[in-house]
C-alpha cells in the first residue's frame, strides 16, 4: 500500500506522518508523474486557491481527475474544496465529488473551533465507539450532496462536515492535526 499526499502547499507533512504511524508508505506528490504506482491520494489542508493555482500551473488537473476515477482520494478542508463540483466562486476545482461547498463557512480564524463528532460509519469500520475529536480551521461546510455522494457526518445543527462518494472522501476538519488515526485508517480501507 502506497499513498500519495499532494504536496503543493499546506499541511502535507502532517498527513505523511499520520500515514507512517499506521504503517503505510507515504510519498509527496508535486508533479503528474509522481501519481504513478500510488494506491490512493490525500489532498491536505492549506489554502485552496494556492493549491488550485499550482495544480493548474504544473498540469496536474487532468491527471488528478483521471486518478480519482479509479483510486481513493481524500480531501481535508482545502482538499475537500478542491475535490468538490461547485463552491459558488471562480477557482480551479477537480469536480470529482458531487458536493457543493462553501469556503470559510464558520467565519474567520477567531471562530475556528474544536468539537466532538459521532461518526457511525467510522466507528463501525474501526471497531470503536468513543467520539471523534475534530479540529475545524477557517473551515468550509458541505452545503449539499448530490448524485452518488452521501453524508458521512453532520453537526448537531445539520451542517454537513464529511461526505463520501464511493472511494472519494471529503472532510471539512483536520484529522491530521490530532493524535487519532481512525480517519486515516478509514481512508486506507477505501484504498484497499
Amino acid at each position, binding site marked *: 500500500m502506497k499513498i500519495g499526499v499532494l*504536496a*503543493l*502547499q*499546506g*499541511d*502535507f*507533512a*502532517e498527513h505523511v506522518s499520520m500515514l507512517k504511524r499506521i504503517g503505510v508508505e507515504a510519498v509527496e506528490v*508535486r508533479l503528474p508523474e509522481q501519481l504513478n504506482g500510488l494506491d490512493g491520494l490525500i489532498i491536505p*489542508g*492549506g*489554502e485552496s*486557491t*494556492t493549491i488550485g*493555482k*499550482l495544480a493548474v*500551473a504544473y498540469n496536474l488537473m487532468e491527471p488528478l481527475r483521471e486518478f480519482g476515477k479509479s483510486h481513493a482520494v481524500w480531501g481535508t*478542508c*482545502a482538499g475537500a474544496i478542491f475535490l468538490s463540483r461547485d463552491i459558488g*466562486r471562480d477557482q480551479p476545482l477537480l469536480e470529482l465529488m458531487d458536493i457543493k461547498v462553501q*469556503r*470559510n463557512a464558520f*467565519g*474567520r*480564524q*477567531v*471562530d*475556528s*473551533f*474544536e*468539537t*466532538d463528532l459521532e461518526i457511525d460509519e467510522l466507528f463501525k469500520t474501526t471497531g470503536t465507539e468513543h*467520539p471523534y475529536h475534530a*479540529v475545524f*480551521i*477557517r473551515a468550509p461546510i458541505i452545503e449539499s450532496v448530490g448524485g452518488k455522494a452521501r453524508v458521512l457526518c453532520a453537526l448537531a445543527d445539520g451542517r454537513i462536515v464529511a461526505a463520501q462518494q464511493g472511494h472519494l472522501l471529503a472532510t471539512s476538519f*483536520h484529522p491530521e*492535526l490530532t493524535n487519532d488515526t481512525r480517519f486515516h485508517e478509514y481512508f486506507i480501507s477505501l484504498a484497499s
Partner: protein
Amino acid sequence: MEAKTGTWTEKKGLAQMLKGGVIMDVVNAEQAKIAEDAGACAVMALERVPADIRADGGVARMSDPDMILKIMEAVSIPVMAKCRIGHFVEAQILESIGVDYIDESEVLTPADEDHHILKHNFKVPFVCGCRNLGEALRRIGEGAAMIRTKGEAGTGDVVEAVRHARTVIGAIRQLQGMADEELMSFAKNNGAPYELVKEVKDLGRLPVVNFAAGGVATPADAALMMQLGVDGVFVGSGIFKSGDPARRAQAIVKAVTHYQDAAILAEVSKNLGEAMVGRNVSQMPEAEKIAGRGW
C-alpha cells in the same frame, strides 16, 4: 461537547495550513488581489512595506483598521496585520476587527522595551520574529503560535534571514545531541523556558511552524530558505518594490513548492524584470538595523 474556540491547537493549526506557502506584504486591496491571484497563502496588511518604513523614518504604528478591513473584504485567504512590540491595545484592536493572525513585529517601532505582549490572553493567534532559539522559545512561552526568523526587513538582502535560520536550526541540532542533564544550563544560557527546551529536543524542531522573513527578494532566495529547513516564507518589500510584482509573486510561490527542483527554479527565475534595488546589510549602520528589536 461544547465547541471550543481560540485553543492552542487552533492557533498553531492555522499556521500549519500556511506551510509550504508564501505570505506577502500588501498595502491596499488591489495589491492583496494581486497576491491572492499569484497564489499567496495569506497576506500581511500594512500601510507601508518595510523598505518605505525605513526610507520615511519616524514612528511606525499599527495600520488604519479601515484599510485592513478593506483588504479582508477583498480576499478570501487569511489576513494578518502587525502591531508594535508590547502594544497589547493595538493587538486588542486587531483582534476585534477579526484579523486571522497578528504579527507582533520589530518592523514597527517598539512600544515597550522590556516586555512583549502576553499572547495567551488572546483568541487570535500571533506570529513573532526571532534571531535565535532562545528568542523563539521566549516568544512561544508568551503564546506565539508561529515563529518567523527575522532577517533584516526592507533590505532585499537575504544574508540576515540565512544567519537567523541557520542559528535557530543549528541550535536545535546541537540540542538533540545533548544529554538531558545539560538542558537546564542550555535553557539558562539561551534565556529559554526549560520545558520548551525539552520539547524542542524531543521533537527535533520548534513546536510551532517556523517561516523565514526579512530580505527574501527572488525565487532562489525563497528556495534557499526552504532548503535550510523553514516551513514557508514571508516576502515583504521584495514583491511590490520589484519591476513586475504579479510575475515575481507567482515565481516565488512556485519556488517554495518546488524548492528542491533546480530545473523548475531555473524556469521560474527567467525574465522576472527588476528585483527590488535592495540595501547591503553589511554596509548598513547598526542603528538602522531593526532585527535587534525584541527582548
